[in-house]
């Protein structure tokens, strides 16, 4: 939305006053050197920082990298060790675990379903003694950096609504996502790149491909400048970034100078502050023409760093490449980076595709945490790894046909891990019951996770609001409690 339309009589008063002041500066604060810096700032929305809510909490995480695992990673096979699953393997679901709960139509009525043991063995790792399965050797090796939340639970049972719920607080598309809220509340720290960047990838070995809907990084009713800028999974992450064939960068620079001069003339003639925004918009576009190629030019990465991320790191569009990009974006001041990876939907492929899935994601995820730590960035960068729900502790498929073992969607308990940015390292928080069915010890609802993430960013989730359709909305709706025990 333009600065013009930022003057929104329906928005909360502090924001409105701030915008008035900003426009005043745009109007009178111009210097003889041309472009007013206020106009630039309004485009970058830096000055808007915290207009939405007062920064009453000291921020621990200056930036967030969400490694979103789309499809529902199987908590009971990866992180949530339940020895009893071995004992009840092949037996019907014991009484008392289901209680009329809803499952996907693929499962239907869950009573009588047979229990399924974890596919791979678990071991304890590091000084913290975290249980991690053999599926995830690289993650296991950094267990002491991680805070596992094993009692997360959600309201939704199908992919799109559950992802939407986790990222935007509502199952129905149309609400602002976490990154958009933070972009709105905190602004951007980069003058050369958007403040909220999204990258997507898909496991190379899986057949099921969940679609990445753009409402997973949408700004909902917030102005669209807060939405995630989706970088594409190719050599050209931004559309139309390159000058037309035959138009050299030197000529383009000269032409843009002329364009700015003409727009300045227009501004002097009609006084519309929007024109200053336009000039800044074109300058930012020009800078992205340089900053984005610099971002994707890996020639400055030492071999040993690239090797850490694994063999796919040079291939645009892979999770490994995106993890490396996430670090490079973080270094360049981008505050919310959402790497989405699809393929965790093992309805019938726990013994097959799950291996490829873990191969594609385990090493890069761990490498990112290590890499950030080596550079001193981990302490103020929050990394979150997890999906929209877990998977059933009972089998989907035929117990006799190991090749086709699967698990169905399971919203009642699942695991995410976090690292850096103000969370305690080397702990596990909360627990599911002895079969991994239900979050029983310190349950953490999706809204609690959201409240905690905002808290780590220095924002009280009850105060980050936006007025739309006559009411004040927030990421956590009317719910959410900060999970204080995991705060460092």
């Amino acid at each position, binding site marked *: *939305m*333009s600065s*013009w*339309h930022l003057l*929104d*009589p329906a928005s*909360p008063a502090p924001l409105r006053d701030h915008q*008035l002041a900003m426009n005043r500066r745009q*109007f*009178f604060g111009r210097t003889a050197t041309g472009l007013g810096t206020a106009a630039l700032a309004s485009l970058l929305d830096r000055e808007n920082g915290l207009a939405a809510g007062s920064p009453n909490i000291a921020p621990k995480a200056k930036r967030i990298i969400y490694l979103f695992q789309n499809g529902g990673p199987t908590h009971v096979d990866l992180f949530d060790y339940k020895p009893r699953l071995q004992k009840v393997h092949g037996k019907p679901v014991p009484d008392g675990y289901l209680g009329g709960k809803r499952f996907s*139509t693929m499962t239907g009525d869950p009573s009588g379903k047979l229990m399924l043991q974890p596919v791979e063995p678990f071991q304890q790792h590091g000084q913290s003694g975290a249980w991690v399965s053999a599926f995830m050797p690289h993650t296991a090796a950094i267990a002491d950096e991680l805070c596992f939340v094993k009692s997360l639970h959600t309201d939704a049972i*199908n992919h*799109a609504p559950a992802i939407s719920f986790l990222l935007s607080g509502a199952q129905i*598309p149309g609400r602002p996502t976490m990154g958009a809220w933070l972009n709105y509340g905190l602004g951007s720290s980069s003058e050369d790149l*958007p403040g909220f960047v999204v990258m997507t990838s898909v496991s190379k070995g899986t057949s099921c491909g969940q*679609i990445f809907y*753009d409402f997973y990084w*949408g700004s909902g009713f917030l*102005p*669209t400048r807060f939405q995630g*800028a989706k970088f*594409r*999974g190719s050599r*050209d992450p931004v*559309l*139309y*970034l*390159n*000058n*037309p064939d*035959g*138009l*050299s960068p030197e*000529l383009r620079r*000269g*032409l843009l100078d*002329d*364009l700015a001069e*003409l*727009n300045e*003339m*227009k501004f002097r*003639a*009609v*006084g*519309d502050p*929007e024109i200053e*925004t*336009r000039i800044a*918009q*074109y300058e*930012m*576009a020009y*800078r992205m023409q340089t900053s984005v190629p610099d971002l994707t030019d890996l020639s400055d990465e030492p071999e040993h760093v690239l090797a850490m991320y694994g063999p796919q790191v040079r291939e645009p*569009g892979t999770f490994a490449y995106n993890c490396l990009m996430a670090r490079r974006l973080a270094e360049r001041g981008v505050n919310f980076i959402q790497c989405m990876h699809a393929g965790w939907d093992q309805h019938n492929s726990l013994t097959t595709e799950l291996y490829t899935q873990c191969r594609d994601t385990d090493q890069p995820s761990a490498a990112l945490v290590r890499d950030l730590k080596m550079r001193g960035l981990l302490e103020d960068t929050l990394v979150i790894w997890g999906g929209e729900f877990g998977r059933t502790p009972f089998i989907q498929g035929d117990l006799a046909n190991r090749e086709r073992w699967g698990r169905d969607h399971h919203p009642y308990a699942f695991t995410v891990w976090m690292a850096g940015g103000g969370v305690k390292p080397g702990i596990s928080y909360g627990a599911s019951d002895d079969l991994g069915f239900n979050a029983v010890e310190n349950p953490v609802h999706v809204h609690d996770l959201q409240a905690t993430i905002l808290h780590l960013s220095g924002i009280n989730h*009850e105060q980050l609001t936006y007025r739309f*359709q*006559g*009411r*004040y909305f927030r990421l956590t709706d009317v719910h959410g409690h900060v999970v204080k025990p995991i705060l460092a």
Partner: protein
Amino acid sequence: MLAFAPVAGRTAPPSSVVFSRDILPILSDACFQCHGPDAKEGRKGDLRLDDEADAKRDRDGYRVIAEGHPDASELIRRLVSEDPEEQMPPPKLGRPLSPTQIDTLKRWVAEGGQWGKHWAFEPVVRPAVPEGVHPIDALVQHGLDAAGIKPNPPADPATLLRRLSLDLTGLPPAMAIGDQSAVISDRENPNTDHRSPITDHDWSAIIDKLLDSPQYGERMAWDWLEAARYADSNGYQGDNERTMWPWRDWVVKAFNENLPYDQFTIWQLAGDLLPQANPDQILATGFNRNHMINGEGGRIAEENRVDYVMDMSETMGTVWLGLTLNCCRCHDHKFDPLTQEDYYRFTAFFNQTPVTGGGGNPQTPPVLEIAPPDAIAARDAVRKERNEAKGRADKAAEAEKAALTDAFNTAEANLKSLDAAIPKVMVMADQKEPRKTFLLDRGLYNAPGREVTAGVPPVLLPAPDAANRLDLARWLVAPGHPLTARVAVNRIWQMLFGIGLVKTAEDFGIQAEYPQQRELLDWLAAEYVASGWDTKALIKTIVTSETYRRSSAIESPSDFERDPANRLLARGARFRMPSWMIRDQALAASGLLDRTLGGASVYPYQPAGIWDEATFGKKTYTESRGGDLHRRSLYTFWRRIVGPTEFFDTAKRQVCEVNPLRTNTPMHALTTLNSPTYVEAARFLADGVLRSHPDETTRLDAIGVRLLARKPAPAELAVWQRSLERARGAFQKDPAAATSLLATGAKRSEPGLDPAEHAAWTALCLNLLNLDETLTKE
């Protein structure tokens, strides 16, 4: 000039406190969350501040509102209390009332605490307007006088022509009005004084010409398509292609034929239920079926079906009532006097189609086949042939079976292709056996509560007998309906001025702002209904006002500061055009625009791999060829899960959207600087002026006229020439670069132009396509 008869009506409100303007918004905003209409969730302290009787009743010795006695009113005591346990609103909410707001409430109680209805639910009363002045200008002047702001003078004629032409057709004036137009050719004539005002007679003639051009309907259709969440695919996983474009063409036709808005409403919501409904009336009901269809495995059919029904009702609510019904899915509205029951009574109207919700068929019946009769007859003949072949094969002896089976297979294949070529538009039809409708707990399909019947909220306008969609549609346009006309004229105003008289075009409920220009809104609404819902007349009424024709320049910083968003309308509108209009303008100005009306959607330029990436290779985009690359943006194929890449700030086409977005991200600039559409348009704009004008000056002037409807001023000309020189130098030094630039875009230039020169002019034109003034309607 149009004649306006003065009509007696309400006079301006007195300066004392007005409940609906001054009090209700405060109560609603600060109190209704806990003391409002929602009966189940969240009401605190056994107090309703939305209900006069409850708010004023005696509570064992004290009263919340004691008329005439602020000191004896608990409301006021709690507002000014300094005890955090007592203070209202509770301090922990962090949204205290301002001293002015508290003072207003005190004054209101002191003046007697008079109650009233939310303004938008009161019937429209046509305000009195003075004779001899355009009513819009007279009403706007009230607000300007009160604020002490002087209105701007009229914009200069060239700016006005461009403004009008873009507003009414989405195309620049030379293209929309035509070079042969007397008015325009005069203005292109260098001897004409461009600053001479356009006479009222000429202005009226130009308006009529634009309103009568087929491009008017195309322009109006875009906004309606966004409201109707029109797209060419289902959405969700799979995202199968659908064939709703005949409905889109009907919309264009309806606007061009100026179908009165009441009929436009009835046909779209319930054309199928009209007596002897004709095919157009049935086709119009495709409006309701434009919702997304979920074909994901693992979804419950009934859950999908309920989603579709809710989407239909909520879209109706936003488009016609300007109310956010969706809040009532789960609970009574927190602010508006709408109950959860009201919501489900609305859904009962739409709950009657035979759709089951199963599968992802993008042509789920009921459908209307749109094709020439002979195509349908040919298909039906082959179907008969196939059925006969099957019948014979089943009965035939072994020896004949093979031949007959072959015949069957041939007919079957033939039938498939003939049938696939007939677009099937999803439309409405009610099943014979009425489906029961239930209030759904928390909006869950499988948590039905008590049964409800179709019906409308009497708080808006009673219609006790409303039983089916046709009754609902007729109720919306019935005399005395408080919302439909207000909501409709507000959208037209928003289209022309960039912001509605009610800023929230989607919400006229209690939480919406009280319109500063309420009398103007009501006058327009009354006028619209009185004209027989004549949309072209409404638009003409608005654009003939001085208010519309004012210059958009900000003449003084102090006036700007007093009204930065121009809500008092001292200035003309100035805002960045929608991205589709920017593209259409570029195509038109360059002469590339293919003006073919209607038909199946087309596939203009899009970078390779966009669809493949979003669908894991299941869908691949194949660009159109020839003229279809240069059709109006309206006809671009809209895939829901990944919309066209060349547009920005458009509705997502997933759910109903009536509020335009206007952002300025660097990605937008990159699009208009670098995408092949704009490079090719620049190339043909250059091509055109190089061939048709003899020298540099007249060429530069011609570019100015095509893009800005004016010639460049001397200071601008100097910069344009500098750009040209830069580009000339670069391309003369590097002829290969010139060839590369000229190779962008599918359409080839005729031979005969010097490549370096053509490339230099192309670079200049590309720059000028990105001027703020080019991108802006001013």
